[in-house]
């Protein structure tokens, strides 16, 4: 009884910012989801390793040691060595930042372009909408990896071109999501009210629509990072992305492929690393989606 009275008084005193209230419920929901917690912790660990790991690796990731080729895991080489005798553990740690760099930058580019096109499309409607969305439909009609392959084939194979290619195929996903949310937000009366005050389109879009369509964008971005990492590794596996001796996981997987029977760990370990990172982002994205979904109430 007393507790109830206390909480009542506290509510009157503190004027809660709805953004903060939302943040605290969001945090509660997010931390109550096991997958989000596991994914989140993994992501934090991955980022930390990517940032500080390379300073602590036992060997240089490109140092060859022909005497110790294709060794299995041991105390000296925790995850064994590859066909040039390079320490796989060091290469995995060093390659982590490459993986994250590709994932984050591809999504950042794809998201920026997609959100921009989606908001323009949803806000202005009409012909602009039709043209943008039909173009997005064309992009969506291609299988993602095929489109990326074509783009890299045109631009030439390098890691940065892989990023561009992966970004291009994540654009339509963002554009569609943002267009839909924009359509529903722009019908709200307060948008009309600021319009009637004489607000410019830019003000309405950036100040009143964008903050209200942010949550689906965040969820999609998290999930897109996973897809992007997977696609980029795929392209590198095909030899279109990172060039040797860069310790890119997809390229390492490709290298190890030739020794699958004698030394399976050379191919398996980069594969497992990719799986862990992709899984981390997927788990976290799923948890995030549930936490941001107003229909799911815990």
């Amino acid at each position, binding site marked *: 009884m007393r507790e109830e009275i206390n909480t009542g008084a506290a509510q009157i005193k503190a004027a809660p910012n709805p*953004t903060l209230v939302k943040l605290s419920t969001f945090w509660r929901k997010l931390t109550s989801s096991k997958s989000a917690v596991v994914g989140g912790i993994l992501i934090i660990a991955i980022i930390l390793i990517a940032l500080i790991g390379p300073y602590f690796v036992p060997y240089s990731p490109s140092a060859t040691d022909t005497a110790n080729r294709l060794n299995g895991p041991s105390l000296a080489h925790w995850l064994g060595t590859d066909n040039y005798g390079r320490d796989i553990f060091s290469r995995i740690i060093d390659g982590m930042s490459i993986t994250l760099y590709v994932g984050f930058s591809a999504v950042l580019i794809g998201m920026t372009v997609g959100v921009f096109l989606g908001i323009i499309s949803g806000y202005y409607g009409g012909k602009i909408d039709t043209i943008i969305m039909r173009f997005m439909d064309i992009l969506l009609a291609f299988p993602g990896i095929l489109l990326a392959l074509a783009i890299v084939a045109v631009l030439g194979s390098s890691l940065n071109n892989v990023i561009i290619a992966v970004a291009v195929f994540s654009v339509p996903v963002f554009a569609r999501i943002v267009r839909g949310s924009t359509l529903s937000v722009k019908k709200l009366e307060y948008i009309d009210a600021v319009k009637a005050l004489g607000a410019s389109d830019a003000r309405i879009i950036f100040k009143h629509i964008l903050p209200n369509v942010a949550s689906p964008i965040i969820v999609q971005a998290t999930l897109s990072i996973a897809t992007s990492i997977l696609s980029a590794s795929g392209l590198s596996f095909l030899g279109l992305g990172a060039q040797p001796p860069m310790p890119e996981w997809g390229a390492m997987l490709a290298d190890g492929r030739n020794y699958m029977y004698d030394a399976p760990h050379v191919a398996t370990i980069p594969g497992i690393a990719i799986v862990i990172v992709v899984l981390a982002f997927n788990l976290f994205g799923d948890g995030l989606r549930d936490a941001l979904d107003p229909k799911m109430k815990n």
Partner: protein
Amino acid sequence: MPKELLKVKDLKQYFPIKGGLLGRTINHVKAVDGITFDVYEGETVSIVGESGCGKSTTGRAILRLDEPTAGEVEFDGEDLLALSKKDMRKKRKDLQVIFQDPYASINPRQTVRQILEEALEIQNVVPKNERAKKIADLMEVVGLGAHQADRFPHEFSGGQRQRIGIARALSVDPKLIIADEAVSALDVSIQAQVINLMKQLQRDFALTYLFISHDLGVVRHISDRVIVMYLGKIVEIGDKTSIFDNPHHPYTKALLSAIPVPDPDAQSERVLLEGDVPSPINPPQGCRFHTRCPFATERCRVEAPELRNIDGMKEGHMGACHFMEEIKNGTHQVE
């Protein structure tokens, strides 16, 4: 004679209905179909009618929140529809709007201060260093405390939120305020407060109101003149007393007879209408009201009546019915 602040001429607002494989326009919703009226400086004109008659659409079209299909809207001697988007943005300072739903019409993520500050910033009404004072003044004017400025909309009641909406509209020193069902969402005691506030503000700031409502009691209280709309057309227009005490159009009569009388013993003559409002997609030919009018004749089905003044009507009072004289004299014969 006060000067005309707003002149609406033959305003039409059609919304296309898209359909088919190629998204062609297959038909139009004729929400507002050629209406003409003037609003004089300092008066309150109400537009009444049942839902779907086009009264809100009229307000939105005047404000160019939806671009009207055809017609003229002249405000203070300037054709609003001819203005470029940029000039229109500046012009919006003079025309403001108060919306129906106080829960949807203010951004839940902004504090009252941010809401008002943004309005002042958009139109650059006062220099930056005077904005805080102006905000405090505005809140005082609409009956909120200046100490509430840093609160968020969810901390206010519906009536208070509507006051925030009014403060926002007032912040840019408008000449005309379009109140689109501004009190319909509030409960009755709060309605009275907000209406009295609006009347007070009208006196203090020399405001002109275009008051859109379906609530005849409220309209009777606040208006100088009344426009009655039915299915996108004006059926009767006139000063308040003429419309309420001497209605000439059968639709107005039916509408007025629906006002509840707070006296259980009162014998009211209820004019009951049959059927529903026809679809504005294919409005009836001739007089739009003929499908439900107890006096309809063959002529009504063919010929659309014009607004006109007959003997016994005050100046400025006009009805759009072919048989106003006959109905009044009791000589009308339904074939």
